[in-house]
């Protein structure tokens, strides 16, 4: 019981600091974004579980040999006014902290959901009045704006993908298709649920390095996942052109279009170009997570690397399972055996 709480506390600290920092610096997530995404989720869940579990186990130590017995003892105190003399100050403190943290996490999750939904509803209302349906399929609308903009607004059956006039003018049909497939991949793979959970996680514990690193990593990984879906039907050159034209913004549209129309894509498999972009990335440090996302997406497309081997992926998956299983088992199994 005593050692369980120490072990969980150590696990919580490791998952809160060194592990996310190492993972955020690692190169392999760009090679197997899906596996990396699972690992981030496992780290966040296991981190939260061990944090709360450590405090709970420590606080319940005097009144039960294991978590279940302890909880039963605690219920007796709360519900039937059993004597609380067994619990010292620090035990009560830990129990209160565990309860507060749990409530805080759940409450922030719900609050974030409510805020996001309200913004989406308002946005959808305005779109219904301002945007006109597009020929590019159901759930796609066009809005009258000069900047090249494409985004999707998730909302179950009412999900909508929005393209701007500026985008339609700047992109060739194939590039437009790549953009649409990319956005639809976000919707069909339910990326908004991941973004919601990690946004809430960051909002709840903003001082914890994990939450910021995890959110930045997740928003970058979902872009790579959506790019990979687009690559199944459209060529790499098409996707890179689409990204570059949209990213270089309204001022660059005319110029970049001219460059592309003048000849074939000069930059694919051009190591120097990729290096140049990497320089740009390091120069842009301190920017928002999404800024580095675009650069890492392009350099990933320019100089593709093999995905992780099956055995390495299996190893990471096993690691994810262990991360979730160990704290859960430590909390529950002694109670079941006892």
């Amino acid at each position, binding site marked *: 019981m005593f050692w369980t709480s120490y072990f969980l506390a150590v696990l919580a600290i490791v998952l809160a600091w060194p592990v996310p920092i190492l993972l955020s610096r690692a190169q392999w997530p760009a090679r197997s974004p899906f596996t990396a995404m699972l690992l981030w989720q496992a780290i966040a869940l296991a981190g939260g579980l061990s944090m709360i579990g450590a405090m709970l186990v420590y606080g319940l130590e005097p009144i039960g040999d294991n978590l279940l017995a302890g909880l039963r003892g605690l219920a007796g105190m709360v519900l039937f006014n059993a004597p609380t003399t067994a619990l010292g100050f620090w035990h009560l403190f830990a129990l209160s902290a565990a309860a507060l943290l749990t409530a805080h996490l759940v409450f922030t999750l719900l609050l974030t959901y409510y*805020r*996001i939904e309200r*913004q*989406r509803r308002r*946005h959808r209302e*305005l779109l*219904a*009045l*301002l945007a006109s349906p597009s020929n590019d399929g159901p759930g796609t609308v066009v*809005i*009258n*704006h000069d*900047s090249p*903009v*494409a*985004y*999707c*607004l*998730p909302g179950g059956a009412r999900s909508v993908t*929005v393209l*701007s006039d500026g985008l339609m003018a700047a992109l060739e049909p194939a590039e437009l298709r790549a*953009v649409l497939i*990319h*956005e639809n991949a976000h919707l069909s793979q339910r990326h*908004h649920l991941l*973004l*919601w959970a990690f*946004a809430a996680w960051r909002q709840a514990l903003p001082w914890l390095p994990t939450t910021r690193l995890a959110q930045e990593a997740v*928003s970058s990984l979902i*872009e790579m996942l959506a790019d990979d879906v687009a690559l199944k039907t459209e060529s790499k050159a098409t996707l890179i052109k*689409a*990204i*570059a034209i*949209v*990213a*270089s*913004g309204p001022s*660059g549209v005319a*110029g*970049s279009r001219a*460059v592309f129309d*003048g*000849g074939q894509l*000069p*930059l694919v498999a051009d190591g120097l*170009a990729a290096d*140049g*972009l990497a320089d*740009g*990335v390091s*120069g*842009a440090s301190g*920017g*928002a*997570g*999404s*800024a580095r996302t*675009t*650069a890492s997406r*392009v350099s990933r497309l320019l100089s593709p690397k093999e995905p992780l081997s099956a055995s390495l992926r299996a190893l990471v998956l096993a690691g994810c399972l262990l991360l979730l299983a160990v704290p859960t088992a430590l909390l529950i199994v002694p109670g079941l055996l006892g």
Partner: protein
Amino acid sequence: MASLGELERAVMDLLWAGQEAATANTLRDLLALSTQAQGDTAGHEGKDLAVTTVLTVLSRLEKKGLVERERGTRPHRYQAVSSRADHTAELMHEVLGSAPDREAVLARFIGSVTESEAETLRKLLGHS
């Protein structure tokens, strides 16, 4: 009968196009005209449009903060709170701006790009 959503859109289009505030009666007549103008294939739906329906649509739009009415006059005269361009700008500000929840609210094809990164991309495009 057109759905309420379609009617809201048609009413906003009229209010945005018109220079001054309009009464529900005027709007109903304009809506009937535009339905007729769409040709015989559209049928005679426009004729059946009741003023009460237009008032319902207007009050829904008012609740959404898109339409305001002049209180002094009878019948009430309605006008758009801000122009179509202003509302588009508001939407795009939400999309392109850096509101804290933006990334969770909607997923953009390209996130915000820093100036140095845009520069590098432009250079990349320029290298032939």
